[in-house]
């Protein structure tokens, strides 16, 4: 797997955010997007996920040398964690995850859904909260529940937009562990962040001003 994009230009509201941006992420690599507010980190991630059309340039996901198509959206191969958590306050923590597990994993994988959910709950230290309605969770706990979604369905690419928002130090370590495990297993991750995530040998891409380059 390889995420590859060339000469991306992003125009929002008639204003050019960045141009001539190229990036290349191989399986087993993590790319951190750095840059000041308004540099286009979120726009780039939304572009990679397929929400935004690039004004110019191409985004491709190559699968072992064989191209999956021309200008495909990476959507189905990625997890996108944006500013919003996608957590239903009427559902318990476990019900929230169970829905995403069922919805996101179109076909069944080897492990049963329940086991996958338990594992994801454990990975983000949510096991003790699993029967509490998500509406009662704190902001950081909701964020952890949102991040646990990453683990309930297998996706080769993780797109994380400010994943550490409202997480405490311990939870940031949990997140770093999850990303490290994902990358070590041959996955790819692209994360926009202002904080040191603690991700091993990550590359960085500095956005800001005109034309970021790797």
């Amino acid at each position: 797997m390889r995420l590859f994009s060339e000469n991306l230009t992003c125009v929002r509201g008639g204003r050019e955010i960045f141009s001539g941006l190229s990036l290349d992420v191989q399986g087993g690599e993590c790319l951190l997007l750095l840059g000041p507010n308004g540099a286009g980190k979120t726009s780039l991630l939304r572009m990679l996920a397929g929400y935004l059309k690039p004004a110019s340039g191409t985004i491709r996901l190559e699968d072992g040398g064989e191209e999956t198509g021309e200008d495909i959206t990476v959507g189905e191969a990625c997890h996108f964690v944006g500013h919003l958590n996608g957590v239903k306050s009427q559902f318990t923590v476990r019900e929230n995850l169970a829905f995403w597990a069922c919805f996101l994993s179109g076909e069944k994988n080897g492990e049963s859904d329940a086991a996958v959910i338990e594992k994801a709950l454990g990975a983000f230290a949510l096991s003790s909260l699993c029967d509490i309605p998500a509406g009662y969770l704190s902001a950081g706990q909701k964020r952890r529940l949102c991040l646990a979604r990453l683990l309930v369905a297998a996706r080769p690419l993780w797109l994380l937009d400010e994943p550490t928002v409202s997480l405490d130090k311990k939870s940031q370590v949990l997140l770093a562990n999850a990303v490290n495990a994902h990358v070590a297993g041959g996955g790819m991750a692209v994360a926009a962040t202002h904080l040191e995530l603690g991700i091993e040998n990550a590359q960085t891409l500095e956005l800001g001003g005109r034309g970021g380059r790797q």
Partner: protein
Amino acid sequence: MSGFKSLVARDIRLALREGGAIGTALGFYLIVIAILPLGLGPDLNLLARIAPGVLWVALLLSALLSLDRIFLNDFEDGSLEVMIIGPLPLELIVAAKSIAHWITTGVPLALIAPVLGLLLNLDINAFGVLVLTMLVGTLGVSFIGAIGAALTLGLGRGGLLLSLIILPLYVPILIFGVGSVMAVIVGPSSFTASFMILCAISLAAIVLAPWAAGAALRMKFQ
């Protein structure tokens, strides 16, 4: 298909837990029909004559109240954003959410209509037909409504705009819904003809509305 089913089941469970979601539409329907005889006076013949039309108009307005619920909550908390890049095509997401809306709003409204019909002295022979036409008609109401809900998503106070866009599209459902009930009560036109056209409208809405609403949602996330 498991994604489709789980989405329908989730939306129904959410609506049940919210309570207010179903309650608002049902409560509005009940209130409108209950105060109408008070305003018109106790002329039973008049009430019986206008009952089918009034029941249908009030049903459409009640359904309208709940339309923004189809996408708004999921849009605001970010669930919709995750769904639209998921494995389920956007058109099927719209269809699943419309079906859930029909089950949680259209079906309860249609089932309570005969009870409210009693308040309006509706001919007792028409009760079965009323429920049947409303069950069919509300399916179209939910699917067409999804277009409006998608178009006005995230506009803030989009309620008026939603009504302006959607109510004209409900006119055929209203005409043929009332027409088929009236055919049973007073004749002489045929019930089958009106009912078939009503079915056709709902079927067309089921097929076409998900594409339109899907396109509107794609635009929203640009």
